[in-house]
């Protein structure tokens, strides 16, 4: 069954556009009137030609005696050239014939008969007919050539614009929007529908302009036929310029091929790419009911072809992107797996060894020894707990559940909590340099302390035991910065960026136990959630300086002092 996939807001948008265009035309009243006349003349060229000559005659008659008969002939020639310029050469020929007769009947004595008394008038009549016909033919041909040039230019412009716009477009829906808008601008059809054919052959209406117009009962059959035969359906008018009807297998067949009694003005075109049928472009008949010409059908086919290429490119890009993500995901999974198994198995096996040793019962352990063993058990457990909480952080990070619960706090409050959670030995290594009068910062207390904790733990782990780690804070222009420096080996220039990637462990980390390689990744993610950043610098004279920046929006000077 036909499924309607149309964003209501989009439909409204285009209604507004066409309303705007209409308003615009009305504001240019003269042009609109001219266009109306021209349109009418184009639709009924022979009626227009004879009508105009008739009207001119009615206008001329009252002043028949004011001018000579020759002058009236000249005025009739003027009328013929107007017809030629508006409606083309054949109507102009009709106008020439009619003028020839009316001039003869009404302006050459004796009046109201076809008889011509003066033999000189016979010559005038003959010349008049020849001149009239020549005017009709030349100016009409000129006009047709101009019209052809204009339409070619219009078509070129359409294709150019379409190419340009398609380059900047993101997805199929946007493409269909742009395509429909361009076609609407050039042809003003009653409606345009863009059907997408999915890989399984399922057809969905991707986008439609004036798509709220009901589908007629035959439409589904036509769409089905186009999808099956990969051929367009159109009944174009014979080209006035006499251009040859194009040949070949790809050309649309008339509606009557499918339903002999049916005559319709709409056009079904397959949207093709090198990999097959991508969709079907269905353009309704023009609002002015002028049938499409062959060259216009070709233009529409070219536009549909472009859409097909776009859809194909889009699909290929999409699958390339997916493959890339999958590859990344695989890499990440195996990295997680190896890191997790290492980080969880190492302390577990040492725990098992220690405890089973104590349980062996073949030796009587003295309490001091037991205490020592238990201290190492405790250390292993801490390491396990740390790894698990890092992994939990990571999974929350992956689940994008990091919504900060922002509140205004004093920088020292958070830092105090972080220090409080450190081991006594580690705490003694940290020196805090917080100046007076620090501003308040707006952070998620828990997350911000996780961030500081990760960086502080890194600094403590990657620098010699006993060496100092200094934590400080202050304003740097409008941003609030917290920095943590250590006296470790520092991070080589090439690794400064990489330390933030998941599971990266620096060249020195091989020497050290523990560490999931997640700490800085998590820290950076938390900083990002706070619209902040983390920067790694060299500390002078040695070691690393990690700077955490908070943007001005998260900083507030305190009222007092």
């Amino acid at each position, binding site marked *: 069954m036909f499924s309607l996939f149309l964003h209501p807001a989009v439909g409204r948008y285009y209604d507004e556009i066409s309303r705007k265009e209409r308003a615009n035309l009305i504001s240019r009243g003269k042009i609109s009137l001219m266009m109306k006349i021209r349109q009418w003349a184009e639709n009924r060229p022979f009626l227009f030609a004879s009508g105009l000559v008739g009207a001119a005659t009615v206008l001329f008659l009252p002043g028949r005696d004011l001018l000579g008969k020759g002058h009236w002939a000249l005025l009739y020639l003027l009328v013929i050239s107007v017809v030629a310029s508006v409606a083309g050469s054949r109507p102009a020929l009709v106008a020439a014939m009619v003028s020839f007769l009316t001039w003869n009947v009404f302006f050459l004595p004796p009046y109201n008969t076809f008889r011509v008394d003066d033999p000189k008038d016979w010559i005038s009549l003959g010349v008049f007919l020849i001149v009239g016909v020549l005017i009709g033919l030349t100016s009409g041909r000129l006009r047709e050539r101009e019209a052809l040039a204009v339409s070619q230019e219009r078509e070129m412009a359409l294709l150019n614009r379409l190419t340009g716009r398609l380059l900047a477009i993101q997805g199929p829906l946007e493409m269909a929007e742009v395509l429909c808008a361009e076609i609407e601008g050039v042809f003003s059809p009653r409606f345009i529908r863009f059907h997408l054919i999915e890989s399984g052959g399922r057809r969905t209406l991707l986008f439609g302009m004036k798509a709220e117009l009901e589908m007629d009962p035959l439409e589904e059959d036509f769409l089905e036929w186009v999808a099956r035969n990969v051929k367009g359906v159109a009944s174009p008018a014979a080209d006035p310029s006499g251009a040859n009807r194009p040949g070949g297998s790809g050309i649309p067949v008339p509606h009557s091929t499918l339903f002999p009694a049916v005559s319709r003005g709409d056009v079904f075109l397959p949207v093709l790419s090198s990999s097959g049928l991508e969709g079907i472009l269905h353009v309704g008949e023009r609002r002015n009911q002028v049938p499409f010409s062959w060259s216009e059908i070709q233009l529409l086919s070219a536009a549909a072809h472009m859409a097909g290429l776009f859809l194909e490119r889009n699909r290929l890009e999409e699958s390339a992107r997916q493959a890339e993500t999958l590859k990344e995901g695989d890499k990440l999974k195996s990295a997680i797996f190896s890191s997790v198994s290492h980080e969880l198995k190492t302390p577990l096996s040492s725990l098992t060894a220690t405890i089973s040793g104590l349980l062996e019962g073949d030796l009587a352990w003295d309490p001091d020894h037991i205490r020592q063993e238990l201290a190492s058990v405790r250390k292993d*457990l801490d390491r396990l*707990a740390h790894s698990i*909480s890092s992994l*939990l952080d990571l999974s929350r990070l992956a689940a994008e559940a990091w919504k900060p*619960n922002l*509140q*205004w*706090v*004093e*920088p*020292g*409050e*958070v*830092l*105090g*909590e972080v*220090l*409080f959670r450190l081991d006594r030995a580690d705490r003694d290594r940290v020196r*805090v340099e*917080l*100046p*007076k009068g*620090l501003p308040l910062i707006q952070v998620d*207390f*828990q997350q911000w*302390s996780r961030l500081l904790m990760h960086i502080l733990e890194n600094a403590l782990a990657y620098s010699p035991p006993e060496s100092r780690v200094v934590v400080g804070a202050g304003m740097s222009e409008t941003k609030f910065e917290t920095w943590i420096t250590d006296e470790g080996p520092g991070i080589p220039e090439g690794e400064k960026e990489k330390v933030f990637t998941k599971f990266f462990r620096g060249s020195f980390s091989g020497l050290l136990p523990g560490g999931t390689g997640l700490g800085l990744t998590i820290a950076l993610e938390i900083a990002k959630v706070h619209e902040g950043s983390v920067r790694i610098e060299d500390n002078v004279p040695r070691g690393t300086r990690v700077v955490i920046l908070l943007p001005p929006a998260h900083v507030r000077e305190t009222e007092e002092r």
Partner: protein
Amino acid sequence: MSAPERSARVLVIDDEESIRRALKSILSMRKYEVSLAGTGAEGMSLAIETNPELVILDLTLPDMDGLEVCRELRTWMSSPILILSVRGNESDKIRALDLGADDYLTKPFSAGELLARMRALLRRSESRVVQLPEIQAGELTVNLARRQVFLKGEVVSLTKTEFEILSLLVLNVNCVVTYRMLAERLWGDREDREPQLLRVHVSNLRKKIEPNPALPRFIRTEPGIGFRFTAE
């Protein structure tokens, strides 16, 4: 770890057998009388039977919500309730504290932490009867009866609000004091208001009593919940 001031009846409600066993061994070694329950229903009937002086309650129970147990117990029992929870579940902690729990401990915890919290809670429930006139924490002395505060032997002048905050924190030494408890004490309202005003008062208080106000030691922040006065 130092021994408790006296032995007490403790009820442990936790669905994890290993945790129950660990708590049992930690607590019985220190002369606490321990009863164990694995479900909420069992816990509540044991609470009626043994009339514990302290309840250790895990929030995840197989038969009912730990918060529900907490609410039920509070309808008739005045003994302190210590909540065990996992990290990052602030809203549950706050709800438990609002429902009458007295403090919480985040898993995994060490025996030392647990015993310190229990001592603080038991001491507090006793001091509800006998109020301590003076409390000493490092170089800070708070005399509740005379409403005086000394830092390194020198008098510290506090505003009325600051003293009220400090006295509530000090009375609950080592126990968490929620924003709501403070607001009730100061302004007598039970409404949930922005803790920002409280935070400003606490910040001023810290400037007066903390040896290093930029890095608070006595009045610690319990993110999203309140404050805790640490004397250790």
